[in-house]
């Protein structure tokens, strides 16, 4: 674990240039838009090279080993999950304020002194804000556990430039098959990409797989996800989230809330497969 030590700061600083260069023909994620974000062009995520933050706060609702967790929400995302609870910021990231890295770095120190145990980089999606994440990490002057709270739908360059800078990958595994992923998340080849990135993450740092239990998606999503975890990375930590919020104007996402029985069944299934549940 690096806890953002001085070596990690240096690494982050050295990688900013590479991350910025990648924006000129943006292929950070499997969308491979190829736009020149440095020239103001925007691809699927709606971002040019300006880094925007729509919220920062100390949050107590994350997994117990991470809290209190200082969340930095970067605007913009490369998925369009129909049930996203911050979709307004992903669809319109330019509505968020441009980040001031120095001020935010100071804020991180303040939050640490107020008790924050982890720095939680999320969004939107941190991967499509890669150069901003590195800018921020390079400015930190105190050790803090860095949490990469990501949808894991990104290309290898992200993994390469974040290697050694992350203490905990809080990795979403949202759907168990590509059909559901395409319909619910708007993502192609989701399964292959996410599995690849999770397996890489496991090699580099602590990993918590996060799966939001979606009503009616037990057989198609939850079970295949569990089966893969049990077969490939049985010792990984698994966090089951029962906080699915049905979108008001859903076309494909379930319109009902999760029932207590659904969650209980999910927990039992995880237990039967000897998965390592964390709260």
């Amino acid at each position, binding site marked *: 674990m690096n806890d953002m030590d001085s070596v990690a700061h240096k690494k982050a600083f050295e990688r900013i240039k590479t991350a910025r260069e990648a924006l000129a023909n943006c292929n950070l994620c499997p969308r491979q838009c190829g736009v020149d974000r440095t020239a103001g062009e925007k691809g699927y995520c709606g971002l040019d090279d300006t880094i925007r933050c729509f919220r920062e706060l100390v949050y*107590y609702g994350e997994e117990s080993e991470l809290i*209190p967790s200082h969340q930095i929400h970067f605007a913009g995302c490369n998925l369009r999950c129909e049930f996203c609870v911050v979709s*307004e910021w992903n669809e319109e990231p330019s509505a968020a304020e441009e980040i001031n890295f120095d001020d935010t770095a100071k804020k991180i120190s303040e939050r640490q002194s107020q008790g924050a145990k982890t720095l939680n980089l999320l969004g939107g999606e941190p991967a499509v804000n890669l150069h901003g994440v590195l800018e921020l990490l390079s400015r930190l002057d105190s050790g803090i556990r860095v949490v990469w709270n990501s949808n894991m739908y990104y290309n290898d360059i992200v993994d390469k430039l974040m290697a050694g800078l992350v203490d905990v990958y809080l990795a979403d595994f949202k759907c168990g098959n590509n059909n559901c992923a395409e319909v619910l998340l708007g993502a192609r080849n989701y399964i292959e990409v996410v599995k690849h990135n999770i397996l890489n993450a496991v090699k580099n740092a602590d990993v918590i797989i996060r799966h939001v239990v979606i009503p009616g998606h037990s057989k198609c999503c939850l079970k295949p996800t569990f089966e893969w975890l049990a077969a490939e990375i049985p010792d990984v930590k698994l966090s089951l989230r029962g906080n699915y*919020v049905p979108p*008001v104007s859903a076309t494909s996402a379930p319109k009902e809330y999760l029932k207590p029985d659904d969650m209980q069944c999910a927990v039992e299934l995880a237990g039967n497969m000897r998965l390592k549940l964390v709260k």
Partner: protein
Amino acid sequence: MKNKHYKRKPGDFEIRILNSGKVIMITPDEALMEIARVVEPNNCALPPQMEIKDVGRPTSKTN
């Protein structure tokens, strides 16, 4: 009542009151979480009272 659902815009907050009486605050900021803590002081997802002092105001325009 309008037939068309309201779509959240950046800066909006959404609070739902379900038939069961359960109140859901969707991705609240700190100010909204403080209100939630008063309404439901035993919810472990909310900041304990003793630790919310002097947190300052979030800097984004949502607040």
